[in-house]
C-alpha cells in the first residue's frame, strides 16, 4: 500500500492528468440530476454515431432509494463516479485501465486485481453492454463495460465505459472503513462536506417528497421533452428526459409507485430516451448541429 495515500481530490486530479494525457476531453459534471455518469450527454449521446470520442469527468450521481441518512458506511443518496469513455475501444484498453491504477500509487503485483464477469443494463435508457466489475483485494472499484446498445440502437463504434467508484477507491487507498472518514484534502473529510446533505436529502426522498407534485412535474417534463423533440431541439429535450428519470427515482424511493405504474413510468422514460437517441443520430452526431432546427 502507498505510504502517503492520495486525498480524494488528489485522486481525481491524478485521474484527470492520466486520462488527459491519453487524449480525453476533461468534461465537467452534468448540471442536471442523474443516477449515473452514463446519463451525461457526453456518454449517452456521444456513444451514438460513427465519430471517435474520448472523455473523462466526475459525475455526482443521485440514487434516492440508496439514501441512508448518512448512517450506513457505504450507501448514499449521492455518490461520485469517475467516468471515462473511449470510443472506439482501444485494443489495449485493459492495460490502459490498469496503468491508471498504478498512477494512483498502487503496485498491482502486490494486490489481487480481478475482472469478474458483470454485464450492464439500463432498461430506462434502452442500453446494455458486457464487461466486468473490477475487484481490488475483494473491493469492487470499477465497472468496465463495452457498450452494445444505447437508446435501443446498435452502436456503430463500440465504446468502453470505465466507471470508477471514487468513494470505494478512496476508502481502499486510505484504509477507511466509512466513506465519511475519507480525507478529501488535508484537514477536511468527506463527511464534513457531505453529512448534512445526506441527512437532508434522505429525509426529502423518504419522508417529505410530495408524490402528487412529483407526478405533476414528471408529466410536465415529459410534455416538455415531447414538445422539444417536435422542434427538434434534441439537447434540451434530452435534459427534460433526465428530469423525468430523476423524478421517477424520487417517486420510487418515496414508495409512491405501484407495480403497474412502475412499468408504465419506466416505459414512458425509455420511449423518450429512444426518441432522443434517434433524433440525435438523424441530426448527425455533432452536438453543434444536433440542436438546430431542420430549416435553419
Amino acid at each position, binding site marked *: *500500500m502507498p505510504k502517503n495515500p492520495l486525498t480524494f481530490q488528489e485522486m481525481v486530479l491524478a485521474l484527470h492528468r492520466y486520462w488527459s494525457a491519453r487524449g480525453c476531453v476533461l468534461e465537467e459534471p452534468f448540471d442536471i440530476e442523474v443516477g449515473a455518469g452514463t446519463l451525461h450527454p457526453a456518454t449517452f449521446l456521444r456513444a451514438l454515431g460513427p465519430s471517435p470520442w474520448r472523455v473523462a469527468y466526475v459525475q455526482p450521481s443521485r440514487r434516492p432509494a440508496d439514501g441512508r441518512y448518512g448512517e*450506513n*458506511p*457505504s450507501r448514499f443518496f449521492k455518490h461520485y463516479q469517475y467516468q471515462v469513455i473511449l470510443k*472506439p*475501444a482501444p*485494443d489495449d484498453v*485493459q492495460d490502459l485501465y490498469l496503468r491508471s491504477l498504478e498512477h494512483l500509487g498502487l503496485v*498491482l*503485483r*502486490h*494486490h*489481487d*486485481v*480481478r*475482472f*469478474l*464477469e458483470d*454485464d450492464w443494463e439500463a432498461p430506462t435508457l434502452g442500453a446494455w*453492454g*458486457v464487461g*466486468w466489475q473490477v475487484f*481490488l*483485494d*475483494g*473491493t469492487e472499484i470499477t465497472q468496465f463495460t*463495452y457498450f*452494445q446498445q444505447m437508446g435501443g440502437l446498435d452502436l*456503430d*463504434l*463500440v465504446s468502453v465505459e470505465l466507471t470508477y467508484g471514487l468513494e470505494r477507491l478512496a476508502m*481502499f487507498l486510505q*484504509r477507511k*472503513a466509512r466513506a465519511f472518514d475519507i480525507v478529501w484534502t488535508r484537514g477536511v473529510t468527506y463527511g464534513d462536506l457531505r453529512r448534512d446533505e445526506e441527512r437532508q436529502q434522505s429525509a426529502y426522498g423518504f419522508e417529505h417528497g410530495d408524490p402528487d407534485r412529483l407526478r405533476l412535474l414528471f408529466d410536465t417534463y415529459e410534455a416538455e421533452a415531447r414538445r422539444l423533440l417536435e422542434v427538434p431541439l434534441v439537447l434540451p429535450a434530452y435534459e427534460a428526459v433526465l428530469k423525468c428519470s430523476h423524478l421517477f427515482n424520487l417517486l420510487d424511493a418515496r*414508495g409512491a*409507485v*405501484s*407495480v*403497474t405504474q*412502475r*412499468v408504465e413510468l419506466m416505459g414512458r422514460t425509455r420511449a423518450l430516451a429512444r426518441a432522443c437517441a434517434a433524433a440525435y443520430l438523424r441530426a448527425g452526431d455533432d452536438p453543434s448541429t444536433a440542436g438546430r432546427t431542420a430549416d435553419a
Partner: protein
Amino acid sequence: MPRAAGARLLLEVGCEELPPASVAPALAQLARDTAAALRAARLEGGEPRTTGTVRRLVLMVDGVPRRQADHVSAVRGPAARVAFDPSGAPTAAAHGFARAHGVAVEALQVREIDGGRYVVAEVRQRGRPAASVLAEVLPRVVAGLAFPKTMRWQANGFRFGRPIRWVVAMLDGRVLPLSIAGVRAGRATRGHRFLGPATVRLRDAGGYAAALRRGRVVLDPEARRTRIATGAAALARRLRGTPAIDPGLLEELVWSTEHPTPLLGAFDRALAEALPREVVLVTLQHHQKSFGITDAGGRVLPGFIAVRDGGAAHLDVVRTGHEWVVRARLEDARFFLDDDRRRGFEARARELARLAHAAGLGSMADHVRRLVALCGWLAEVARLDAREREVLARAAALCKVDLVTALVRELPELQGTVGRIYALEAGEPAEVAAAIEQHYWPRAAGGALPERRPAGLLAVADRALLLTGALLAGLEPSGSQDPYGLRRAASGIAAVLQAHDPGLGLRELFAAAAARYDVTSDAQARAAAAAVEVTLQRLRAALLEQGVAYDTADAVFAAGGDVVADLTARARALQAVRKDAAMPRLATGFARASRILGQAQPAGQLDPTLFDADAERALHQAWEAVEAEVARAARAGRYDEALAALVRLADPIDRFFDGVLVMAPEARVRANRLALLQAVTKTFLRVADLGRLAG
C-alpha cells in the same frame, strides 16, 4: 516426440476475461468441432484435446498429417452408348469429358449407375499442405464457438464471448498463416497478467506447456481445482474447521483464475455469533467469492478463505483488503438484520403490494392472495388434517414476506431461509417456519425436497401459479430462453409430486391454478393444458435421469394418466421387469393384439358362449383372473404386482394367436374375439402401452 507420426498442432485463442461459466462448454465444443473439421478436411490425426483458463482457449492435436490425404472421386459422364461408338472407340463426347476432368480418354471406365451404363472418370485431387488447409479451417471453428451471450468490440462486427487479443497458431515450429477476429496468429503467448512475463515466444508447438509454466499460468483446470480445494482445507484446519465449499463457487473460481492461491482471513468472533449461519456463509460467498469455515457442529467460525489470482508474495496486503471488506459486509448484514427486526415480520406483508411478480402477473400481494386460495383447495383435495391445514394456510400467507426485507434484497439467494429465521423470531410454529423455507425446494435439480406435506403442497401451488400465470401472459419458454424459470418450476412440481402424492392429476391442479386468474375460461383451459404438457415433459426428463429407459417412459406415457406419482410408479415398475424373459413375448403379443384391433370393430359386449376354441377360452379365463389382480394392484399403486400378473398372460396370448383365427369368417365370432383382445389390451394399458417398447 516421433516426428514421423505427424505434426503437433497448437492453437491458443487469447481473450480478455471470458465469463467463467462459458469456458468449459466452449472448450468442449472446440474439441468436438475441430475433430469434425479435421475429418472433413482429410487431416485426421490424434484426438483433439482442449484446455484453458478464463483468458485462453487452447487446442492441441498430435499426429496431424503434413498434407491432406489425396482425394479420389468418381465423376459420372455421358451414357456409355453416347461415349463409345458401336466399334467401342471413344466418341467426341468421351474425349471432351476426359479433357474436362484432366484424365486420359483410355482411363475412362464404364460403370452401372442407377440402372444405366455410364462413363466414369476417376479424378484424383492432390492433397494440399496441412498448414494452408488449417489456416482456413481453424478460424471457422473458432468463429463458430457458442457463448450464452456474445458481444462486438470492433468495427468488423466479429462476435465472441469477450474480445480476442492474441492468437498463437503453430504446426510444429511453423506459424500458421491465419487471423481470427482480425488478430494475426503468431508464436508469442502471454503469461499470467501480473506474475508472468508479458510475452513468451514459442520455438515450437510442443513447448507450450513449458512456456506457460514460465508464465506462471496453471493451465490444467483440475490442477487449479486441487490448489483451491486442498489449500482451503489445509487453511481451515488452522481454525479446527472445514471450509464450506459451495460447488458452484469452486467451479467459478477454477474458471476465473490462472494461478489461484487461497488465503485465510479472519473477522470478529462477535459477528460470527450475532449473525445466522446462512447469512455469514452467503455474504462471504455472494459478495466476496470466499468460503466460510464451520466447525464439526456446523457452527460458523470467525474466518474465511478467499482465493487470490496470483502468487504467495505480498499475501498479507491482499488478506488485509479482504478482511476489511468482509468486516464491512458483515456489519452491513447486521445493520439490515437489526433494521428488519425493528420493523417486524408479519407487518411487512403490506409491502408485497409494491413488489412485482413475474411480468404481467401483478404484484406479489396478488400472488399471495391466489396462493392462499389455491392452498385452501389443495388442503381439501389432499385431505390434510386440521393441524396441517393450519400450517399450510399460515405458511402460504407468510412465505413471500421475506422478499421485502433488507436482508433478502441484499442477499437474494437467502429467500426462504431468511423467512424461516424471521418467522421463528416472530414466534411462528416451527412447522410454519420450515414450510416457508422449504416451499422453494428443490432449489436445484436433484436438491432436497420439502419434508412434510404442507411444505410440499405450498411448493406445488407456488409453482403452479407461476407456470399457468406466465403461460397466460404469453411467456412460454422457447429454445434455450426461459427467463422466468418456467421449466425449472415444472421440474420442481414433478419432483415434489413424486415425493408427496396428494392423489391429484396435473389437469385438475393446473385447471385450479389457472382459475385463480381473471381471464376467460378458454384462456384458462389453454394455459392449463400447456402447463400439463410442460410438466409431463419435465417429468419424462426426470425419469430418464433416474434411470428409466426412454422407451419405458414412452410406453407408460402413451397409456395415459396425469398423476405424477402414478406415472412414476408405473415407469419404475416397468423398468424393473424389462429384463424379464417373458417381456419380449408379452410386448409382441400386445402389439399384435393392438394391430388387429386397429383393423376391425370389436363387439360391444364380450360373450363367452360364442367361444369355440380352447385357446380362446383359456385366454379368457386367464385374463379374468389377471384383470382382477391388476386392477387391485394398480389401485394400490403396486405396479410390480400388476406386471407380475400381466406376465402370466404371455403364454395364453401366444397360444391364442397360434391356435385361433381372429378374423373368423362369421361376423359375430370375429367381433367377439376382437372384444376379448380389446379387454386384454385394456388391462395392459392400466400400466403401459407395451407396443412402444423397442426390441
